Structure formats: C-alpha cells, structure tokens
C-alpha cells in the first residue's frame, strides 16, 4: 500500500529536518551510537567554544607517507560451542613520491594466527604443534556462542591495532621527513601529551559523540563542505588523548549527517594548532581522485584506499585459507 502523501509533504520545511535522498552504506545505525547522555562535552582547545572554520582549498597536499592495516578472518572451527578463527593481519606504510605511490612499502608487517577462546582444547592442541601462531582469547563466562565469537573478532581487531601501532611508532622513531597519514585514530600512539609529531589520523566512523549538548552538536552536524570545527581534546576509553577536529569533505546535502564527515586527530600538543588549517586543506585536496567504487568514498581518501588495496592483494585467498584449515 502506498500512502497518499509523502513524508516530506506532511512535515514540510522544518528546522533541523533532513530528508535522506540516499541511505549511507556504512554507519547510520552506529552514528554517534556510543553517546552517553550524561557525559560532558569534550574540551575545546582552540578557543573557548566549538566553532566552524572555513578551510582553504589549495589543491595541494604535503602528506608523504600513508599507513593502514587490514585483516582477513575466517571461521575455521567450533570446539563444542567455542569458535576458532584463522586470521591474516597486515599493515604497511607506503610512500608517495611526487604523485606516484611507491609500490615497495617503507614498512610492512603481517601476521597469520589462530584465534579462539582460551578454554578451547583445540587451541591447546594447535599450540602444542608449534605450527601456528596461537591467540587465546579471554571470554567472559556465559557469553554464549555469539558473544564468544564477538570477543574473538574483537581480539583479532585489537591485534591488528597493535600491529598498526607498531608501524606508526617505528615511523615516528625513525625521524623520517614528511608527514604520516594514518587511517584511524592516533591517540594510542601519541601517549606523551605535549610532544608534537608530523602524524595525522583520520577517523571515518563516528560511533562516539564528543558533543551531546545542543550548540556544539549543531556545529558538528551543520558543517558544510570545506568547513571544520574548532580543535578539541579527544579521549579514548583507555584514556589516551589526542587533539581532534571534525572536517566535512563533501557536502551532505540530501545525504546522511555522516556523509563526508571525518574526524582528524593529531598529537595533543600546542604545535598542532599551528597546522590545523594546513592539514585540513591537505585533506580537502586528497579528495581527488575519488575512492569509488568503495562505498565509503565520501570519507575514504584515495591514498588510504590505495594502501588497503595493497594490503588486500597480499591476503591469502579463500582457497589458501581452506587448505590451511584442511577443508
């Protein structure tokens, strides 16, 4: 049955109403999903309140290095009700010379392992064989099958995070010239508050809402293409701190509020404030080329997509994983 009048016609033009022309592929459902209504707004470190700033679009970018990680996990067995996964994790730092991505990575890490609840006797047998890298996962009691599977998958992701952290740390310690563009947050790496590094993290998913009160929330959602917010302090659930700001890469007109919205992280240091506008303009420049056909093309910047492709090309195929499992 088709209604007589459309929702738009019934609601009319109302402030704050956004009609979605096309549903976002990624995270509408998890957009700001971790909001704690009782939580305070994040601390603004650039000025006293969250504001919008226009970003110059110079078309130039001085990012020289790009880091990302990727994983391929496959359910390998069930030991009674306990799931066991085979996972291949890798990460790389690629260099861009002039406009060309250099195919020989500056740094590359990979890991192939079996992940399963620590109680799994199958895991114990595999460990005894010394043929596989074993990752026992501590699961809460009575988690159930799906809960244990979620715990194992989270452990796989955490292991990949560690791999990425290792790559970033190595790059930072190498004092390499240039700027490192990291896919994801960098707070875990930049633990020493006050120390500046030429590293920029770009967060594409927005599960955590840093501002729940109305005014700053409106600023974030009201960003237009090429606008950023003031810098604020972003703190992870582990207490790691970075300085961060939102940047709208593409107009969200008729789109989900998250469309084209990224959150940028830099080390929590005063020096960061001197680079916010420049880095923002670099990120605007990185919108080209488009990352299509990736569904996240509105936020996924091309060099990171390139690193993803590079990493995925090194993943074992389904046939290889099946052979490893023996099926």
């Amino acid at each position, binding site marked *: 049955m088709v209604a007589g009048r459309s929702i738009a016609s019934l609601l009319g033009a109302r402030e704050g109403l956004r009609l979605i022309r096309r549903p976002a592929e990624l995270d509408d459902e998890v957009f700001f999903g971790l909001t704690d209504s009782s939580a305070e707004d994040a601390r603004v470190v650039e000025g006293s309140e969250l504001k919008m700033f226009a970003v110059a679009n110079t078309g130039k970018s001085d990012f020289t290095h790009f880091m990302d990680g990727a994983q391929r996990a496959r359910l390998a067995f069930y030991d009674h009700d306990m799931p066991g996964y085979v996972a291949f994790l890798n990460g790389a730092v690629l260099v861009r010379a002039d406009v060309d991505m250099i195919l020989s990575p500056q740094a590359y890490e990979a890991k192939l392992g079996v992940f399963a609840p620590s109680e799994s006797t199958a895991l114990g047998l595999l460990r005894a064989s010394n043929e596989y890298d074993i990752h026992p996962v501590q699961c809460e009691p009575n988690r159930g099958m799906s809960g244990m599977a979620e715990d194992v998958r989270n452990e796989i992701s955490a292991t990949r995070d560690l791999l990425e952290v290792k790559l970033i740390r190595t790059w930072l310690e190498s004092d390499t010239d240039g700027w490192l563009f990291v896919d994801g947050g960098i707070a875990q790496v930049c633990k020493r508050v006050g120390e500046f590094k030429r590293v920029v993290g770009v967060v594409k998913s927005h599960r955590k809402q840093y501002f729940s009160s109305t005014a700053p929330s409106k600023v974030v959602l009201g960003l237009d293409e090429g606008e950023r917010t003031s810098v604020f302090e972003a703190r992870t659930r582990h207490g790691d701190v970075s300085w961060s700001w939102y940047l709208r890469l593409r107009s969200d007109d008729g789109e989900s509020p998250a469309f084209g919205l990224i959150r940028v992280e830099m080390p929590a240091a005063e020096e960061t404030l001197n680079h916010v506008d420049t880095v923002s303009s670099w990120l605007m420049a990185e*919108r080209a080329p488009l990352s299509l056909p990736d569904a996240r093309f509105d936020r996924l910047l091309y060099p990171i997509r390139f690193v993803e492709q590079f990493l995925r090309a090194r993943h074992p195929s389904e046939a290889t994983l099946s052979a490893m499992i023996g099926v």
Partner: protein
Amino acid sequence: MSLIGHVVATESSPNTAYSFRFWADQKCRIGIGTVIRAEYADTKVFGIVVQAYAYNDVPGAMADFLGREGRPDMTPPTARPEVRLYEAAVLRRMPEEPVGAIGIGPVFEATEEDLNDALGAGKYRDRGIPIGVYGSKANPMAVYADPEFLLGPEAGHLNVTGTSGLAAKTSYILFLLTSIFQRFRGEGGEGVATVLFNVKGGDLLFLDHETQSPLDEEHRRMYSVCGLDPKPFTNVHYCAPFKDEAKEVVDSLRTHEDFKNSPTSGFCFGLSEALEHAEVLLNRDDLDAKADAFLQFLRKVAANEEKLILEGTQATFRTLREMLACIQKMLDEAKANNETTFQSHHVATIRKMHNRLSGFLMRFPGLISAGGDPVPALPEAFDDRHIYVIDVSRMASDAQDLVFASVIGKLREKMELGRLGVRRLIVAVDELNKYAPSGGRDTYVVQSLRDIAARGRYLGLTLFGAQQFRSKVDAQIVGNAANSAYGHIQLEELTNSIYTVYPAAIREKLASASPGEMMVRHPHFSQPIFIKFPIPPVLKGSDGMARWPAKVVERIEDRIVRLAVVRDPELKPHEIWAHLDQVTTPDRPAILHRVEQQIGSGDAPREVLRRLGKLAPQQVTGQYPADADDPFA
C-alpha cells in the same frame, strides 16, 4: 636478459596452452609484435604480444570526472596506478612436450638467442636467408627464413599483401632478392636467378645502380646485422617489347643513351604465341565455341598438324599477316563457291575472327610481329645470380596480359623439362589481383600460376607474388604460398574473413603499418612476426627516371600521322591509319620511311596516302613497275 613483467592468470581469464597474459612495467618498450620469454618450473615459453591493455583503478568515467571536479587540468595529489597488461600467443616452448597450459612466472625481454629459439632458427640459422630485422632501431636482430621452406623443396613461394604505395611490396621483394642472392648456397647450375615484371614506371629499371643518397645509419645497421652488403645487383638484363614492326626501338622507359653498353633488349611474339594466347587478347564474347574451334583450326594449320587447301593447293602461314591473308582467301573462296562454310567453319565465324585477329596489328604493333620472326624475351637457360627484368610498363593492360601469359607459360614448360638452368628460379609477379583473381575465369594464366604454386617448389620455380587485396586472389595460389608478408592493409580489406584468424590488435597494427614494416609468416614460425626491412640498395625508379629520362621515340606511324595532320588539318588520324594499315608487305618499315620523307618534304599528304592505298595491293603482287614518287618503289 631483462626482467620486464610477470605472467598473470585468473579463474576468469586463465592461461591456455597457446596464449597467456602478463603485466609489465609501464616503462618497458612492449607493443604488438614484441617477442618475450616467460619462465616457470623448468619450462621456457616464447610468446609474441598480440594484444595490449591499460587501465587504472577508476571504476568508471563518471568517477574520474567527479574526482577531477570536471577540470581536465586538475592534477590530484595521488596518481592512480596504471596497469599495462598484455596478451601473448605462444611461439614455442622448451621443452616442447607436454603442451600444457602456460604456468605463472617472470617475463623477460627476448634476447637474440631467445628470438632464434622462438622462431626455431637453430636448425637452419647458418644457411638461413635474412628476411628482415626484429627489435628496436638501436638493437635490431636478424630474422631468418629457412631457404628450403622459402625456395623449396620443402615448402616455398612468398605472397606479399599491402596497399599500393604504402606497403613497399616491391621494396620488400627487392630486399629479399638481395638477401637471397647473397646468402643462398649454390653456384652455377645450383644457383638462383630471378625474373621480374616491371609493370609501372621505372620501379625495376635501375636495379644495377646505387641509391641516390647513401643509406642512413639505421638502414646500414639493418644490413649489417643481416650480414648483407647493401650493394646493387650486378647482373641485370632488361628487355621490353619492340615499339613497332621495325624492331629498332623498344617500348620502355629505360632508353637513355647512357645505357648503350647495356641496352634494354627488345622482344616480340610471333604467330604461334599470338594464337596460343589468343584467349588472353580476345574478349569473352568473341570466344564462343565456334570461334574457339576456328582458332584451334588455325593453330593446327600453323603447326602443320592440319591441312588448309586454298584454290586447290595446300596453303601454310608463318606470320600473322600471312595468316590473315589466308583467312581472307577462305572467305573469298567460300563466297566464290556460294558456300556458307569453309572446311566446316561458318563464314560468319571466319569473318569475325579475321576481324578480331587483324585487330592485333593495330593493338599490339611491335609486340606481335606481323610479318617477321619472333624475338624471345628470355634466354633458353638462366644464369646464376642474374635478374631478368621484363618491362611491360608502357604497354596496355591486354598487352601486359599477353606478355605475362606467354612468359609464365614458357617458364612452366622449362620447369617441366628441367631446363631452368639454375637450381632455383624466382618469378616475381605484382598485381596478382589482376592476373589470378579469385572467382574469375579459369584462364591459362591462372592455371599456370596455380601449377607453379602447387608444384613449382619441387621443380625449382618459386613464385613471389604481390597484390593489394589478398582476399581477391585465387585461393589455391595464395594457399600454396608457405610464406606470407603483410604490409599496410586497408581497413576494408581487413574486414575480410581471411584476416579474422588474427586478433583485432594485429589487424589494427596492419592498418597503420608504415613502409618498411611487415608481418611475416614462415613455416617455422608458429605465429606471425613483425619485422622491419631496410630500403633496397638500388636506385629508386623515380630517381632513375629523373637521372636518365626516357628518350622520346615516336613510332614511325605516329610521326606520319602527326606530320600529315599538320600539313592537312582536314585529314583525320583514323583515315591516315587506314591507309597505313594497307601496307602489309615485309618492307613496310622502308615504305613508311619514304612516306614520312615525302610528306616531310612538302608533298600533299592526301596524295601520298592515296598513292599508297592505290598501289599497295598491286605492289604486293608485283604487277607494276617502280615509280620514283611511289613510296613502294
């Protein structure tokens, strides 16, 4: 040995036993026709690139347009990586068994050793005939053909296809002849000779002269890697048909007085050739069954195989004029006897044939001797490393046909009798479209060419044919050519089904090939190879013509016509010709000479011609005394 890429095969695009794909660095100089080597396990596979692809990771034009914000001059901070993907056809594998699918492995640029291995040249390299070079300008490598598969007896013949003026068919044949003459093993009776037909301009009339400008470095290097000395041919004989019955002047562009020590020799056919190849000269409507029967009758009479009784006595004829006189007598006798037939041939048929055959006098003056003996074009036996050029460029199409039919027929006879005089004789024939068209009449020429193509290689006769449209040449003739070369070919021709065996990229390359580029097939090559060849080391026809312009020689008949019309503008050329044609006596040249003198000295042309017409028949019979004013005297 340079590593340039890697074989890639996917489930959706797997390798087969005869083709595989590989990617290569963008900077590598790889294109259609490049030979490469792939290695996997203990196997080497040699391939030739038959298709090239390039793409990046942009999913569609719209994504690129949007990504560049609609600005063509926009340079994004990151360039999308481009892949250069190539499809290769397998030339050879080592070891040759098993013939399995090509494996995954690295790909290398082919070295000279690889090229020889790929083309199976190891077995014949030391006796091989260089047929061009492969590779870059800086590093050309010789490509060899096995002489036993080019000149027989294992296989033979060459067919060259290409657009006129763009494909350099003649140049390629001349280069090959240079190569064969310098590299073919065998001397004297075991040697090699060539017969060439010069069908247009001065193309083949200066083969014993050096090029106008010295060869440039690139072309000298090509000769050098082929182990050839770029020098003109040393033993070249030129012949052309006589211009007229006087047999003093040849109808050729090579008549400059600088050639008085090696003049272009003249030739003409006699009655027997004219009758033997009459079907070449008569149109299809003329040659019905009755006409053909009468022609056969004349042939037999000329060969003394059948008796001709005229006025109660046996008549014979040796020349065209004598034969025409005899035919006239047949008609007269039938009329006198009030008969409609003569020796079972209807007078209408006889009259028609008289008419047509007498037309030979007008159509082929000099080529068919009306009243004298024939002068052969070619020697009885050929000499080693000699070229015999038959210049038919000044002749009308039907006269060319006659020369061609006669020479090919003679060569075929020599071939049958084993009297070529050399181990291998190459006959180069251009315009096969014309002489042996597909779907055309089963003419004597076509039969001869088919016979040579089918059996010539066993008997020492090799056909180097050329044409613009291979699809329009008799299938047996091109099909029996074990070697083929393709230069620039028009797109329309390439749409023909005979080219569909080649991938689209190959066809497109042929459509844009430059002069000096050829795609060649040879029995030892499992795939066609793209080669280049240097310009032949002989003077170009146009340069030769500029240096040695042809001496303008008018036939005496033409001079008389021109003079007569100047003196009496009322006279029509065809009227003058009609008078001149009545002079059929053996001393016609002397008579015409006097006619020219008399008109030239001021006599009224009409009067001179009148005397000529009035006196001629009587003069033939000797009834009248000589007269000082009479051109017959």
